[in-house]
């Protein structure tokens, strides 16, 4: 659950990110992006999504900003699951970076955040 909005999931084949509430009602968050492999909720009213690149997308759907682009020359062909880490003492200055991964396969058609 994200901010009481429901469970966020992506449809990797048909595109889009959706939210389903406790009653099973589905609402569309983003309609058009295909191949989303991972999501992290961002503090700035948006989602970080991964797939062909890493992008920040505002919620409700609006601005899209690329955080990191693939680089096939270096073998960076896409991005799969992502997660965030906590601001903890032993990590000191860095509070909540996003970890992301080079994609090397085709995960199933839907993923939790």
């Amino acid at each position, binding site marked *: 659950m994200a901010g009481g909005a429901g469970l966020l999931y992506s449809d990797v084949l048909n595109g889009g990110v959706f939210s389903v509430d406790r009653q099973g009602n589905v609402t569309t968050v983003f309609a058009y992006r295909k191949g989303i492999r991972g999501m992290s909720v961002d503090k700035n009213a948006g989602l970080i999504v991964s797939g062909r690149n890493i992008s920040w997308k505002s919620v409700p759907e609006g601005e899209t900003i690329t955080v990191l682009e693939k680089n096939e020359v270096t073998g960076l062909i896409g991005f799969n699951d992502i997660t965030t880490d906590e601001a903890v003492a032993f990590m000191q200055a860095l509070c909540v970076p996003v970890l992301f*991964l080079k994609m090397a396969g085709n995960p199933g058609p839907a993923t939790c955040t």
Partner: protein
Amino acid sequence: MYLIELDGSARKVAFDIQLTNGLAFSPDGRTLYHSDSARDHINCYSVTADDSLGEKQLFAETEIGSPDGLVVSEDGRVWVALPGGSGVGVYHPNGRFDQLIEIPEPMCTSVCFGGDDLKDLYIVSGSRGSESDRAGAVYVQRVDVAGLAVPLARVSVSA
């Protein structure tokens, strides 16, 4: 595996991964668990003081299905979606297999905790290997331990 810093810069933090998939931190944040699906390995890394990762260590090798999305609960157990395994494998912090939470589809791809108390376990299935109209579904099951909350991303973004 890469790390995006708060300022948006990125660097590689782990190598020799065949098919990267789920990743999550331990309750104390000092261990990162990661699925390498092609090898059927759930690996773990120590997180060092300079935000680097230590040497890759085998946490568990899946016997049924391959590891995909994963999450960690407050008690340190690791919950791993198992494509081909028809469910979520649960592993103790020492890597010992605990239990399998089954779903009626073979392609279990991802898992996360939710609900007000983070004791609702959401399980995602994919359509590969199934003709069922339930393929590509989200299941939910109550569990006896809360999942770890995942922090909000705070990476700097600019147009």
